[in-house]
C-alpha cells in the first residue's frame, strides 16, 4: 500500500498569476527514495510543502485535488499534526533553528509531538549519532558551520522517526564528500524520502526513482536507469556539464597572496602560509572540504580582509559576490540596487541588468524577485563595477543545471579583461568554467 498519494493536485499561491503545481498525480511507496528534479520555479519546493501540509495551511492559496499521507488527508490535518508522520528539512538551516544548544534543538520536535520526557534526550542523541554528529550534542548552534547545521536539521527530522522525509536542497552548503555522506545517511535510514537537489548527479546515485518537474507539471516519473536515459536525451545539462575549451591568456598578475596568514580568533589561524597568484584572463577554481578556509582566502584576495601576516597585493579594483543573494537587497528598486556600486549611474545599471536577463524589472523591489532572479541581481550588482578581480563565492548554490550552463557562459564573456576566482563545491561547474583548480586540504593540490 502506498505511503503517500497525490491525486490531481493543482495549487496556486495567493496573488500568483498561475498555478505552481498543475494536475499532479503520483504515489510514494514506503522506504522509497525519490529525487525531485527540475529548474528553479518548477514547483519542487511547493510539492514538498504540499506533502508537509504547509500548502495550503501555512501559505493559503487555491488548492484543488488531494494529498494523503499514511491515510491522512492533508486538508483535514494541520502541518503541526502531520509532524512525526512527515518531517522536513528546508534549504537554509539558519532559518529553521529554534533553540541555542544542539541537543535541545534536536529535542524540540520530540517535545512538540509529545514524546515521553524520559526518552527525549536518548532519541535526540541517537538521531545525532545516525547522521554522524553525536559530537555536536552539547555545542551551541552559533558555533557550527553551515554543513554541521544541515546535519543537525537532518537529525531533528530523523529524531521524529517519520514515515516520510522531505529534504529541500539539503546539501547546498556541503562539500562533495560531505554531501555524499549526507545522502548516504538518508538512503540508509530506510525511511521514504523526497529529495530536491540542484546537484542531481550525486542524488541519482542514492535515489530509487526520479520525478522531473517543469512549469508545475511532472514531465518524468521513472526509476533511476530510465530517468538517466531520459535526462541524457532531453535535459543533458542535468547529468553534468561539458569541459570548457577556453584558453587562458595568462597575462599580468592582478592579485598575489604570499605567505598569507589569517585568524578570526587569536591563535587559531583559518588560513596559514597561503600563496596564490591570479592573472588577468584566467579563471581559477578554489575547492576543498568545508572549513578549509576557501571563503577566507577569497575575502583576502578581494581585500575584504587584511592578512595577519604575509602579503596581499591587488592591482586594480576587486568585486566579490557573496553566497547569500539577500545581501543585495538594500535599495527599494532593482536599478537603484545595481547602480549603488557605480555612483548611481543608471545607464550602466540598465546595461548590466540587460546582460543578465533582468531587463524590464528595473522598477521592481529586489525582495519581490524570485530566488533565481535575486541571484542574477546580485551578480549584476558586482559585474557592473567591471572589476579587475572578480571573486565568486559559491555562485551556483540553489541554481539549476540549465542555468549553471548559462551562468558559465556569462562568466566566460569578458573573462579576458579580468582575473576570476571561483570558490565552489560544485565540481561540474568548476570543471566547465575554470582554467585551473586549487583543491584545499592538508596539502593544497593544483589541477
Amino acid at each position, binding site marked *: 500500500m502506498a505511503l503517500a498519494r497525490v491525486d490531481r493536485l493543482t495549487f496556486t499561491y495567493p496573488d500568483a498569476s498561475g498555478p505552481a503545481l498543475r494536475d499532479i498525480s503520483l504515489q510514494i511507496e514506503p522506504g522509497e527514495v525519490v529525487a525531485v528534479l527540475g529548474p528553479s520555479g518548477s514547483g519542487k519546493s511547493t510539492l514538498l510543502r504540499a506533502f*508537509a501540509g504547509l500548502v495550503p495551511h501555512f501559505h493559503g492559496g487555491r488548492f484543488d485535488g488531494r494529498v494523503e499521507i499514511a491515510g491522512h488527508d492533508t486538508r483535514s490535518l494541520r502541518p503541526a499534526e502531520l509532524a512525526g508522520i512527515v518531517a522536513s528539512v528546508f534549504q537554509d538551516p539558519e532559518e*529553521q533553528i*529554534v533553540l541555542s544548544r544542539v541537543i535541545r534543538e534536536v529535542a524540540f520536535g520530540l517535545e512538540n509531538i509529545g514524546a515521553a520526557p524520559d526518552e527525549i534526550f536518548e532519541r535526540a542523541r541517537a538521531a545525532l549519532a545516525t547522521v554522524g554528529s553525536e559530537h555536536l550534542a552539547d555545542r551551541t548552534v552559533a558555533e557550527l558551520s553551515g554543513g554541521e547545521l544541515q546535519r543537525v536539521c537532518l537529525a531533528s527530522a530523523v529524531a521524529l522517526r517519520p514515515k516520510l522525509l522531505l529534504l529541500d536542497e539539503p546539501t547546498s552548503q556541503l562539500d562533495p564528500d560531505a554531501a555524499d555522506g549526507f545522502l548516504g545517511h538518508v538512503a540508509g535510514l530506510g525511511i521514504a524520502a523526497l529529495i530536491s537537489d540542484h546537484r542531481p548527479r550525486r542524488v541519482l546515485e542514492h535515489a530509487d526513482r526520479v520525478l522531473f518537474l517543469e512549469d508545475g507539471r511532472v514531465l518524468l516519473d521513472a526509476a533511476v536507469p530510465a530517468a538517466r536515459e531520459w535526462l541524457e536525451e532531453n535535459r543533458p545539462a542535468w547529468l553534468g556539464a561539458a569541459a570548457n575549451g577556453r584558453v587562458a591568456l595568462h597575462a599580468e598578475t592582478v592579485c598575489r597572496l604570499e605567505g598569507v596568514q589569517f585568524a*578570526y580568533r587569536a591563535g587559531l589561524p583559518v588560513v596559514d602560509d597561503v600563496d596564490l597568484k591570479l592573472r588577468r584572463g584566467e579563471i581559477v577554481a578554489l575547492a576543498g572540504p568545508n572549513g578549509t578556509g576557501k571563503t577566507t582566502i577569497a575575502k583576502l584576495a578581494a581585500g575584504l580582509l587584511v592578512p595577519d601576516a604575509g602579503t596581499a597585493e591587488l592591482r586594480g579594483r576587486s568585486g566579490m559576490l557573496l553566497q547569500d543573494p539577500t545581501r543585495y537587497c538594500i535599495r527599494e528598486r532593482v536599478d537603484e540596487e545595481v547602480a549603488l556600486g557605480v555612483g548611481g549611474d543608471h545607464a550602466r545599471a540598465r546595461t548590466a541588468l540587460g546582460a543578465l536577463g533582468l531587463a524590464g524589472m528595473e522598477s521592481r523591489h529586489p525582495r519581490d524577485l524570485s530566488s533565481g532572479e535575486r541571484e542574477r541581481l546580485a551578480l549584476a550588482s558586482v559585474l557592473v*563595477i567591471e572589476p579587475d578581480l572578480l571573486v565568486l563565492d559559491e555562485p551556483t548554490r540553489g541554481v539549476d543545471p540549465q542555468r549553471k550552463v548559462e551562468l558559465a557562459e556569462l562568466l566566460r564573456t569578458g573573462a579576458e579583461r579580468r582575473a576570476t576566482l571561483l570558490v565552489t563545491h560544485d565540481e561540474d561547474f568548476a570543471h566547465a568554467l575554470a582554467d585551473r583548480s586549487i583543491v584545499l586540504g592538508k596539502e593544497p593540490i593544483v589541477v
Partner: protein
Amino acid sequence: MRPAAALALLAALAIAALLAQHVAGAAFVALVLFAVCLRAPSERRRLYLVGTLVSAAGVFVLTPLIETIGSHPIWTGPIVPVLGQIDVTSEELSSAALNALRLAAVGFAFAAYALLLDHDGLLQAVRFARPAALATRLMPTLERDAAGFLEALRGRGVDVNGVRGRAVLLSPLLASALERGLNLAEAMEARGYGRAGRTSVPQPPWRVRDAMCVALAVAIVAAGALWL
C-alpha cells in the same frame, strides 16, 4: 548551577545597583558584573560591553548639563535657550556618576544573561518560552545580517561610513528580520509547534547550591536597599 538560579543572581545584582544610593556601591556591583561578562568569548562580548560603556558614558556626560541640583558649581557655561544657564555642580557630577554606574550594571547584567546563560533551559517551562528565546537570539542575528550587508557593499566597492551611512541598512535589516521570521514560523509549524499534548525534557533536580544562590540573590537586593 541551574540557569534560573543564575538569572536570579544577575537580576538581584542589577536591582541592587538600581537601589544603590552611593557611587561606590553602584561601582562595586558594576565591576562584579563586568568581571562576569569577561568569561564570555571576546568577539561575542565586545558589542555588548562597548554598547553598555558608551551608553553609560553618555549618561555621565549629559546628566550634569540637564540636571539642576546642588550649590557647589565647578564650571559655569553659557545661557542656552530652553535649557537656561548651563553649569556643572559637584552634586550633579555625583548624580551623573551614580546614574551611569546603575545603567552600566543593568547593561552588564543583560550582557551576562545573553552571553553566558542557557536560555533553552531557562525558558523551557514558561509559556512565553519560545518567543523569548527567539528574541534573545535576535541581537546576534541582526548583528550578523548587518555585517553581511556591509561586506556585500564593500565587495562592490561601496564604503559605508558613519552613523548616516549605516542608517541605510535599517530598512533591509528590518525586511530580513521579517522574512526570516516567516521562514522560521513555517519551519516551527512543520516541526509540530503549537500541537496539543506537548511534553518537555526532564528538568535537572533543584540542588542545595541553587537554593543558596536564590537566598544570596534576596540578600543582595536587601543589601542594595539598606547599605549600598
